């Protein structure tokens, strides 16, 4: 391993679900490659595994309800 690779910080993201817009279609759950999202008992999308998010934006782009917003955390810590 090169020094450069070991020094790269893991990227962190936030996934925000607007539950007023979310209609519970489950598309986001199915398009997420890392199982970050799951349906809760109120049939709304819910973030359950944020640490694995890669920021691929699939959930945001495929959400038909404009309910999901993914942002990168500007990591300083």
């Amino acid at each position: 391993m090169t020094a450069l690779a070991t020094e790269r910080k893991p990227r962190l993201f936030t996934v925000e679900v607007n539950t007023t817009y979310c209609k519970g279609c489950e598309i986001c759950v199915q398009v997420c490659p890392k199982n970050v999202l799951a349906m809760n008992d109120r049939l709304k999308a819910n973030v359950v595994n944020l640490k694995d998010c890669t920021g691929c934006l699939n959930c945001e782009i495929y959400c038909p309800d404009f309910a999901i917003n993914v942002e990168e955390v500007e990591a300083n810590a």
Partner: protein
Amino acid sequence: MAIAGKIPTRKYLRQDRLPHIWCPGCGHGIVMQALVRAIHNVGLSQDKTVIVSGIGCSSRASGYMDFDTIHTTHGRALAFATGIKMANPELNVIVMTGDGDASAIGGNHLIHAARRNIGITCICLNNNIYGMTSGQFSPTTPECALATTAPYGVIDPSFDLCKLVQAAGASYVARGTAMQARMLEKYITNALKNDGFSFIEAIDQCPTYFGRKNKLGDAYAMMKRQQETSVSVSKAAAMTPAELEGKQVVGELWNSPRPEYAKSYDQVIAKAQQGGGR
């Protein structure tokens, strides 16, 4: 660090109008987002862009978008759009229409807008069904599929809208499915850059009426199925008609720029003012 491909979608939406009326899992929101992203990519001004829609589920899109917007009569979106573009060619004109709106009641307007190559980008959200009226078959419903007005299966052959508009004279034609949202975004971006009539057929899912009636599963299952029955332009070129049966060709199907109609009319104005004609 910005996320690659992240765009401020909400800036282009009338957020006070959301949530929208579309059913859970309806693909129209995915296509509408692809359009918004393409508008952002091209950098169209929100103040100089008009979104025109007809009647039906898909045509409700105009009300949610923060531009000058007009929700017209059934099938007539392209005719209204033609008037807008001709009266003020400086405006960017985008039409959102559905399969029934564009190809049944509005079929004549579709072929003539394509023939003129007028500077309009037309996005046809094809979910294979009349959703607003709860599930009657449209000209793009596949043969044998069930619909409330085809309880024994559709006997009408379905329209290939891309072939239709290409034959009529559109200068840019592309097709994609909701599952290929990023490709749709790319096609719409290229369509908006084309100075002429651009047509995008966005195949998406109606889980409520088409899906349920035909036992196609949930929204995601329908999207996957649409992706699986898609064949790229390059692959399709090597396939026989029998092999292409039941498949749809996706990609940029036609891209052949030719003079845009309103610009051609500029030459009419020049000729008339120089004393030509008659």
